[in-house]
């Protein structure tokens, strides 16, 4: 399939990568991440088969980073989330046994975030999907997520016509997730690798594609990329 490899050396690169290149890039990325990011959960590869008939190579799947927790201070807690229940469905004190052995604790509200990096066959670039939910599973609406995003995220999203967040069906999980739309990705990936003929060598591009991609995308959702990962690019 990748006869393009030889062609690529001659023709200018368009900023995209093939599906099998994505897998290689993903492996390189998650390995580097583990090395430089000891205090954050690792990116795991989740193998998935979507198009049983069309899939032409073995490794199809996506990168998953789940369980990032954002602890909200008590002032930020949502009081509107609690339902006002009529006491029809409570349990009266007489019914349940008196139990002093249960600790009564007030827990902080926590927003959990899951991130997936999924390959888009139509745009031929990676796409970041994410979702957020409270500890009990209730999904966060986008308005709430926006409060968690860093300040410069809104700025990036309003300035760049390429970066905007939409809600679309996750290609493997068939449920709506939020994603950063990929329509401009190939353009700015080209810019990132532009001008340096050494960088344009095939293998290098693939190995560093996701690191470079993530250094831009991560800013929009507040995921930082450790400097150590970026430094390997400049050699």
């Amino acid at each position, binding site marked *: 399939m990748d006869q393009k490899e030889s062609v690529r050396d001659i023709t200018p690169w368009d900023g995209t990568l093939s599906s099998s290149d994505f897998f290689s890039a993903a492996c390189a990325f998650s390995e580097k991440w583990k090395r430089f990011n*000891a*205090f954050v*959960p690792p990116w795991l590869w989740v193998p998935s088969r979507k198009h049983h008939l069309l899939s032409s190579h073995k490794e199809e799947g996506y990168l998953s980073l789940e369980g990032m*927790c954002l*602890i909200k201070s008590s002032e930020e807690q949502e009081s509107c989330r*609690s*339902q006002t*229940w009529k*006491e*029809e*469905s*409570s*349990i009266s004190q007489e*019914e*349940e*046994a008196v*139990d*002093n*052995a*249960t*600790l*009564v*604790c*007030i*827990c*902080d509200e*926590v927003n959990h975030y899951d991130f997936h990096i999924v390959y888009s066959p139509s745009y031929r670039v990676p796409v970041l999907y994410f979702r957020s*939910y409270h*500890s*009990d*599973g*209730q*999904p966060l*609406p986008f308005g709430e997520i926006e409060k968690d995003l860093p300040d410069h995220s809104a700025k990036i999203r309003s300035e760049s*016509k390429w970066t*905007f967040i*939409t*809600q*679309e*069906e996750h290609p493997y*999980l068939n*449920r*709506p997730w939020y994603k950063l*739309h990929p*329509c401009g990705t190939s353009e700015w990936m080209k810019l990132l690798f532009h001008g340096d003929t050494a960088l344009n060598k095939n293998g290098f591009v693939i190995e560093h594609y996701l690191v470079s991609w993530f250094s831009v995308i991560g800013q929009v959702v507040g995921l930082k990329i450790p400097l150590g990962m970026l430094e390997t690019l400049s050699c």
Partner: protein
Amino acid sequence: MSKKEGALLQFAPMQSSVDEGFWHRFSSLKLNKLGIDDSPLPIIGFYAPCSHSQVSNHLTLLAESLPSESSDSSLVPEPSSGNRNKCSVPGILYNTNTMEGFHALDKMKLLKEEAAKIWNDIVTGKAVEDCSMLSRFLLISFADLKKWSFHYWFAFPALMLDPPAALVNLRPASQWLSAAEAESLSTACNEWRNSKSTADVPFFLVTIDPQSRATIRLLKDWDACQSDAHKILFGFYDPCHLPNNPGWPLRNFLALISAKWNLKSVQFLCYRENRGFADMGLSLVGEALITVSEGWKDTMPNAVGWELNKGRKVPRCISLAQSMDPTRLAVSAADLNLKLMRWRALPSLNLSALSSVKCLLLGAGTLGCQVARMLMAWGVRKITLVDNGKVAMSNPLRQSLYTLDDCLNGGSFKATAAVESLKRIFPAVEAEGVVMAIPMPGHPVNSQEQESVLDDCRRLSDLIDAHDSVFLLTDTRESRWLPTLLCANTNKITITAALGFDSFLVMRHGAGPFSHAHGFNAETAISSSSDVHKIKDAKGKHRLGCYFCNDVVAPTDSTSNRTLDQQCTVTRPGLAPIASALAVELLVSILHHPEGIFAEGDISSNVIGTSEQPLGILPHQIRGSLAQFSQMTLVGYSSSSCTACCDTVLSEYRNKGMEFILQAINHPTYLEDLTGLTELMKSATAFSLDWDKDDDDGGGDEDCVEI
């Protein structure tokens, strides 16, 4: 950190977390397989030891907690095994079919039943064999599949020790163990957690020999642990992160230890991790004192365990309408499509103008159906269709909103069927159907019908007032007269589409004679009805013409005395979709033009880039011919003798109102006399209705380019 001797041992309650996927799969199961069957359903919950110093782990339900939907499988979920992050525990789901049923469930009874199962497993020894039974749980729910909201309540049954256990001390494992012991235990735990056969076994025994070597064993190896000089710890995966309290699973573990092995003093290990590795600083070791009476284990103990919701004993509710309601999903997908068009190709696309414009479609036939669909594709949501006909058997082929079902039993009314069809395509459309005939000049009415015809006139006038843009899509010329007049009077954006056998006309009417092109923009056209100044339109700038401005005869009865093929409009099928599409694109262009209805008519030319508007030129008329596969843009100016839009006619209408209309309807020559057309007529032959012919008769008022 140690606790005072004899203080009450307090356990941190287990907390639940239900992934969206669980509710999705449950809804699907309920709709496709379970139906109204509300018998209890076995489910699987998952938990893992705490792995974050500030956030507890939860008992989690995922999509795979439920049985799969395939018809050949039994209603039992697939157990997972060997996954270190997902220790499976058995549970049971009672889902009711009504809210009342949910409230009426006997909660204490259900809790007792599940607790009894745990007690039974302890007494028979089954819990020693399969310790995950100790964390069995209960879930009651009511799934409201109309509103996509789920009311639910977890219970984690815990057998109560009577009197409750006392806590002698509790401190981090790293403080209780020596350095060597801690290291050995960490290693042993990591091996245990990395081995597929034990990774998800949440209760275990730890023995530490005098050489500081730690060994981890299954509960059933209890006898092998009975060796002197060995320290014994009862270990369990603790989802809780709190430094001063053990997690909930310890409760039933203590009940088992007391009932099975009769111990009074229990050293326990709350096993917790950090980043996937055993952490002896987060993990706690404590000593509990059990002082139950002799006969305690002869009867089933009491149980507690209903989960609190923000401190109160009430159920929880989760709403998933955002992600499950198909209508909402369709709306956001449609919006995304238009936004993408805007982002990628047309930054000046005015999406809010499109979604707020109110369109009135006169005629729900071949043209009406296609125009409606095209409008929806552009994001127009407010559409009213007017038609007095019923769907006939031949219609579905050419009229794209109807199917055979609409033709049965005499046929549904087109206006009604069209609206239903639009809603099936896009539920968020705000569509209305009006079954009404349009009064036409030259079709005289007798005195009995007079009042109802006047009613229709008023109704039509009200409809036009209530909308921003009107499409004339009927199949006769005369039916376009009254709408044209009313639109010219209120200065509404009016678009006409008319079909010949293999040719079409799509045009926008010019502004009315009483309007003034002052500070116009698309928004004001939509929000205000008409900008009436008594100043006639300036000479320097001609008003563009309407559909009738080209005519030299008044519209009159074109339907009597025609042959069959003339009566049923027979056109090449490709015409209607082409004309309809052009009509809608014309509207969108008007809405984006800074002068809107007052914009001059452009004609297409071969010079690229002549238009400054992002959507391209804004023609006045488009005439196309399928015979030539050609299309041309024309400009025609208003005629001062036009029977529909000249100021003579409009003044008369304003002065005499319905009386004027009635005159026009009943007296065929009235309009011609009024406008002076009578004098312009060159011959008095009976006219044919093919408008191509009329073009040949065309008078000198036109100022257009013809090829």
